């Protein structure tokens, strides 16, 4: 127990505390100045805005994928089930160069898209797609066990009481999946906000247009502007804490709901 805490402190707590201490070297006005400078504000907007959109896509597509994987039988299902975890396991730099090459203007998917007038690589759209990629496993893997364990009799009861299939799914199944869906969404969002490796290759990294907040931290560090880097990091860290807090609440809520049944 004591050992756990000591080790946790050395590796995780002290370094994080150091970050906050460093940020206290700035007074509030300086902090606000850094955060509200145009470039920082835009980077934060790009990271948070696109991460939110990507997590929404993950929510919708994740629901469809998990439904197909759990409820239907089709050839290759087990393989598709296994590869959902690829974004977890594939190093982000590898994912980054692979996605960039795939969506580049002469790439397998980039070329046909370019003919339609859609440019992906080196644009915010590229950032968005990389964030979608990185978020795929979260919704699927949080919802999957809940959907598998869902009592079939609830759906049968709904159907026998005259509900249409659509009503049953919408009013009976979906509410019981809701906490898991939201947890998956929050996890995907948190991951996408902080994502670096898979995004920077495809992003183009134009200040104010396609520059994400983690990259701006790296740039400020390489310019030895530690205060700027720290300020941006503190904002991102606070959001991480907020997301963790929300997820904890969600899980408590899910447990309470389970007990209510």
């Amino acid at each position: 127990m004591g050992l756990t805490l000591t080790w946790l402190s050395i590796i995780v707590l002290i370094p994080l505390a150091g970050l906050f201490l460093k940020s206290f070297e700035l007074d509030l006005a300086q902090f606000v100045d850094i955060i509200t400078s145009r470039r920082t504000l835009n980077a934060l907007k790009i990271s948070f805005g696109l991460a939110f959109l990507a997590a929404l896509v993950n929510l919708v597509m994740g629901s469809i994928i998990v439904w197909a994987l759990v409820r239907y039988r089709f050839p290759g299902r087990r393989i598709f089930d296994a590869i959902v975890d690829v974004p977890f396991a594939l190093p982000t730099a590898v994912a980054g160069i692979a996605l960039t090459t795939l969506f580049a203007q002469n790439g397998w998917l980039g070329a046909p898209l370019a003919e339609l007038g859609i440019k992906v690589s080196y644009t915010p759209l590229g950032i968005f797609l990389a964030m979608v990629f990185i978020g795929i496993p979260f919704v699927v893997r949080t919802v999957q066990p809940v959907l598998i364990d869902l009592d079939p009799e609830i759906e049968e009861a709904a159907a026998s009481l005259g509900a249409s299939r659509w009503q049953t799914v919408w009013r009976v199944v979906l509410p019981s999946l809701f906490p898991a869906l939201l947890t998956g969404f929050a996890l995907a969002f948190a991951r996408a906000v902080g994502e670096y490796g898979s995004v920077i290759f495809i992003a183009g990294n134009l200040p104010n247009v396609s520059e994400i907040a983690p990259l701006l931290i790296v740039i400020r560090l390489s310019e030895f502007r530690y205060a700027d880097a720290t300020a941006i990091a503190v904002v991102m860290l606070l959001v991480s804490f907020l997301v963790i807090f929300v997820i904890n609440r969600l899980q408590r809520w899910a447990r309470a709901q389970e007990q209510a049944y």
Partner: protein
Amino acid sequence: MSEAAFAISRDRNDARTEPRWVRALLIGLCILFLTVFIVLPLTIVFAEAFARGGQVYLAALVEPEALSAIKLTLTVAAISVGLNLVFGLIAAWAVAKFEFPGKTLLITLIDLPFSVSPVVSGLVFVLLFGGQGFLGPWLQDHDIQILFALPGIALATTFVTFPFVSRALIPLMQEQGTAEEEAALSLGASGLQTFFRVTLPNIKWGLLYGVLLCNARAMGEFGAVSVVSGHIRGETNTMPLLVEILYNEYQFVAAFAVASLLALLALITLIAKTILEGQLDEGRQTREH
């Protein structure tokens, strides 16, 4: 099966499934999405790596720079996985087998590195050990190099991979409870004997599972390592960092060759993971019977 029973069972199925066209649409969307976002990127890594044949591919991998990156990556992974293996066991033991105030908080803290941006994870170590950092001047006086060297890379990697082992073990150990340990202790086994003869065999698959995921992340970590490594060629470049450098220098075949090794690692990890999940399920079922 009598005809009536058959009719009922068909009815039950119909109540829980969708019209044929909806099923086809959802399966189609699932396959299309996973193909575009996962199958194609994976394929392109290998296609690009072998774009100029097997010989060019192999030549790229035996470059001194590539070899030193592979060596560094293996070293860092060994250190981080080793440290987190020991810690993960202790942490999971503490959380699963004992009750104490602040337990939820401890679990949250253990999970923390999962939701922190890798770049921020690297930054905290720069702030601690860098020239302008808290310990920087002291380290310089004593000529200890942490940042832009192996210790910094290993520390950042350990931070990022911190939760994997304990996360894999906590639910498993909680499920198993403490009855078997108590039995062993009451029969006169020492604490260590109990651990090695009772606890460890019970959790071996879960432990392997955690180590596997921890290792995959340790070898592939990019953001955090990129911040603390200093990018000294042939010295502090891990494989993912080398991929970036080669790619930015337009040495695409070499970049994808190194990337293909990492992709292969990811695939092997996933296959092993699927097998281990089978083992874990089996263990769960035998316990329930």
